[in-house]
């Protein structure tokens, strides 16, 4: 089980790369550059999932004061930030090719940047507060910060007139080959997220035990 999940992740990742570059049809207007979509959008969705896990674990921590819930919340926020960074770096590259500009202060881009900055703030808070307070403060912050996620997702609909991004409903209009490549890519990135979260949490638990042992001596 310990090696099965990482192995499955690598296989699914290679399968997704094959589907993206060898199977999915080319989009008619953007051609090759549209293939950024598969990992750009999947990274965005994976970061939403990570931030949702942070929110749920933060609630659990506030209710039960469970150390593991706080650890998972922080680690998931860290991974969410990693995937959001992928979104914010691949996005401008795609924008430069398609819209001929690296950045545009349109709703989706601006709200995604705010989301990234919010979770960067989560770690600043976590590192600056005293150890007794940091878990409680960051749990509250983790719940409040999640309110940004639906804003990012629905930003295209909310500010339709000023948005350059296509409405989220267009994904249902994707060709079958594109849709399956996208779903497998998303699944691959979700598996990467799960594997990394598990690794990071195991590491955190060992570190916690070690610190406790050292404190007892």
């Amino acid at each position, binding site marked *: 089980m310990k090696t099965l999940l990482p192995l499955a992740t690598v296989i699914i990742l290679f399968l997704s790369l094959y589907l993206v570059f060898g199977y999915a049809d080319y989009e008619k207007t*953007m*051609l*090759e*550059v549209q*293939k*950024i979509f598969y*990992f*750009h959008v999947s*990274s965005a969705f994976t970061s939403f999932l990570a931030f949702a896990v942070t929110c749920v674990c933060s609630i659990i921590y506030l209710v039960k004061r469970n150390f593991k819930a706080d650890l998972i919340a922080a680690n998931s926020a860290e*991974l969410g930030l*990693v995937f959001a*960074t*992928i979104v914010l*770096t*691949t996005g401008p*590259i*795609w924008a*430069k*090719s398609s819209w001929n500009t690296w950045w545009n202060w349109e709703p989706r881009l601006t709200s995604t940047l705010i989301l990234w900055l919010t979770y960067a703030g989560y770690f600043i808070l976590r590192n600056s507060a005293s150890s007794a307070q940091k878990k409680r403060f960051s749990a509250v912050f983790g719940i409040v910060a999640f309110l940004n996620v639906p804003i990012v997702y629905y930003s295209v609909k909310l500010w339709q007139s000023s948005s350059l991004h296509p409405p989220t409903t267009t994904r249902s209009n994707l060709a079958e080959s594109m849709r399956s490549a996208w779903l497998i890519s998303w699944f691959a990135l979700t598996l*990467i997220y799960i594997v*990394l979260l598990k*690794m*990071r949490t195991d*590491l955190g638990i*060992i*570190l916690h035990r*070690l610190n406790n*042992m*050292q404190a007892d001596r």
Partner: protein
Amino acid sequence: MPKVDFIIIFLVFATFLAIFQLTPSPDTLIPEERIETAISDVLGNEIKYDRAEIYGIVVKVVELLNEGQSRRIKYLITAYFFVWLILILYLFRLKQQYTRLHKQIQRLETSSDQIQPK
């Protein structure tokens, strides 16, 4: 020292990206010889066509179809380059933490050996 490793990884990636970005690529990705061969394969030895005229038309069509392809591919590769760079840097950070933890455990084992009476 770990920070140096971190910078080295980043610099290696950045160098590859710079080389890739700065290398000029031809607008037409299909070489002229291949176009000529393809025309010969289609037309065979028939002499009723003006081969020079056909060649000119085909080259223009290929140029039109390939227009901007190298530019688009550069953007595509750059985007995927950053996806892997970010994931590799994160994995590297995890590895650093594992190494630090391992050293901490070793230190603890050594100190507990010293404390134990012989």
